[in-house]
């Protein structure tokens, strides 16, 4: 938590604040890269132990054909897993909301699926499913629960007076769901979705690593595993960099969608104009 007024320790105009907000992280990045480069050069560290940032960059550009193909595979898996998690999570939460019995019967198993580490499940899934399906299942598995849990919470958090109002006007089940419960739950759902986006990538990567140790695969994580075997450390770094960038892009894209959907009315997305 940020105590009130902490922003105001240095008097700044809005423009100056915006500038520093963007400039400071960049500055930190430059300093870090410079320090990294310096450490590698001064100590003469060989590239198979720690490559310098320039070498990583050159590898990224040089191996782009291989890496971008793998990135596409991993991203496609993550996005498919994410989409399935979204549909499954919201859908199941709606079912739970319509039927308490169903919720009582199934919710514990959703929790069990969530708390079991995906690293431990992935090798098993790889035995029983084709490799691509197993990777997808892992991405889905980790992304599914945050959507389910948040949507369930949201659907149950509807203002009771608004519920009474809808009842007064004899709203049907369907109207109640579409016109009241889902819109009211939207901020919660989007919160879950933002978490799920990053998790689906993690799920896909974990499964690919497991698959990679079995000697098959084509995703980015498989490239990392493969490069590790071959002591191609610069390529490992390049692939890792791509994964991080992909994660950040997913996060910002989902935050932006969330902002677009909520900006008109929800506190979390309102720009204070005082």
């Amino acid at each position, binding site marked *: 938590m940020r105590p009130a007024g902490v922003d105001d320790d240095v008097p700044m105009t809005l423009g100056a604040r915006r500038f520093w907000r963007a400039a400071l992280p960049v500055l930190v990045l430059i300093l870090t890269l410079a320090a990294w480069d310096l450490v590698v050069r001064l100590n003469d560290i060989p590239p198979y132990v720690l490559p310098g940032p320039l070498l990583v960059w050159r590898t990224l550009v040089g191996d782009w054909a291989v890496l971008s193909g793998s990135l596409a595979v991993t991203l496609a898996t993550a996005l498919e897993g994410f989409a399935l998690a979204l549909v499954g999570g919201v859908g199941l939460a709606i079912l739970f909301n319509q039927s308490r019995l169903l919720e009582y019967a199934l919710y514990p198993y959703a929790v069990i699926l969530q708390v079991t580490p995906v690293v431990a499940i992935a090798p098993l899934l790889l035995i029983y499913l084709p490799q691509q399906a197993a990777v997808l299942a892992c991405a889905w598995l980790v992304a599914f629960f945050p959507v389910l849990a948040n949507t369930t919470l949201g659907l149950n958090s509807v203002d009771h007076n608004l519920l009474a*109002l809808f009842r007064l*006007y004899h*709203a049907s089940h369907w109207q109640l769901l579409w016109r009241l419960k889902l819109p*009211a739950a*939207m901020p919660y759902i989007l919160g879950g979705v933002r978490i799920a986006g990053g998790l689906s990538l993690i799920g896909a990567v974990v499964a690919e690593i497991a698959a990679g140790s079995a000697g098959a695969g084509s995703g980015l994580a498989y490239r990392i595993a493969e490069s590790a075997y071959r002591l191609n450390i610069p390529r490992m770094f390049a692939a890792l960099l791509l994964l991080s960038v992909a994660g950040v892009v997913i996060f910002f894209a989902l935050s932006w969608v969330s902002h677009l959907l909520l900006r008109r*009315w*929800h506190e979390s997305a309102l720009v204070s104009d005082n």
Partner: protein
Amino acid sequence: MADPDSAQPVVALRGVGKTFGNGTVALDRLDLTVRAGEFLSILGPSGCGKSTALRLIAGLSAPNRGGVELRGSADGAPPGVGFVFQEPTLMPWARVAGNVALPLELAGLPREQAAPRAAQVLARVGLAGFGDAFPRELSGGMKMRVSIARALVTEPSLLLMDEPFAALDEITRFRLNDDLLTLWQTLRKTVIFVTHSVFESVFLSQRVVVMTARPGRILTELTIDAPYPRDESFRTSPEYGAFCRHASQALREAMAMDEPVMEASAMEAAR
């Protein structure tokens, strides 16, 4: 009431009791009849079961004992009911027009037919041109007007209001009281108005029903025999003061406590 037609009861509560699941007896043998076109206030201490009674009348909950009867037109069909909650209770994701049109759309009216009617009631409560605003862009008093517009949009013959102005400042509250009376006189609806303000109940209503603290029952009722339209001059008239004194005395009895009614003594001191 000279009109014999309007003497017919719209709402009749007979020996109504309500006990909640946790054992709280909210209402105990409540009897109440409301005539068509009447403006009735229910006055009572906090927690005496006013909201509970209103929800029973609206059909939002069922009594454990006794009966709640609603009679609308001559053919016995139930009257349309509008409900105004203590909070504005608007959907924050919908524009003002969408909020007001909601009851019509829930009833299956197509949007293009609901929209003009919503605009009409919005104009009636003094919010013409605010249809495109979101609730968060409105002041507390304006939100309450939207809530009233939404209750009026189905043209109900019975309007139930649960302390609608309790959270507002006095100036806004006075203005909305005036507006409500104007609406009532033009639209001729039956209004049941719940409040814990002696002054509001006396200023607005033809009849004030005073409820006792839990379990809720009716202690007494006062007829406020003053002509409408009522305006600022009524608020400062000696008869208004007398009505208020009676009402607050009854309220004090209802609370069955020696605590003075703060509002009343403050008002008298101010005069």
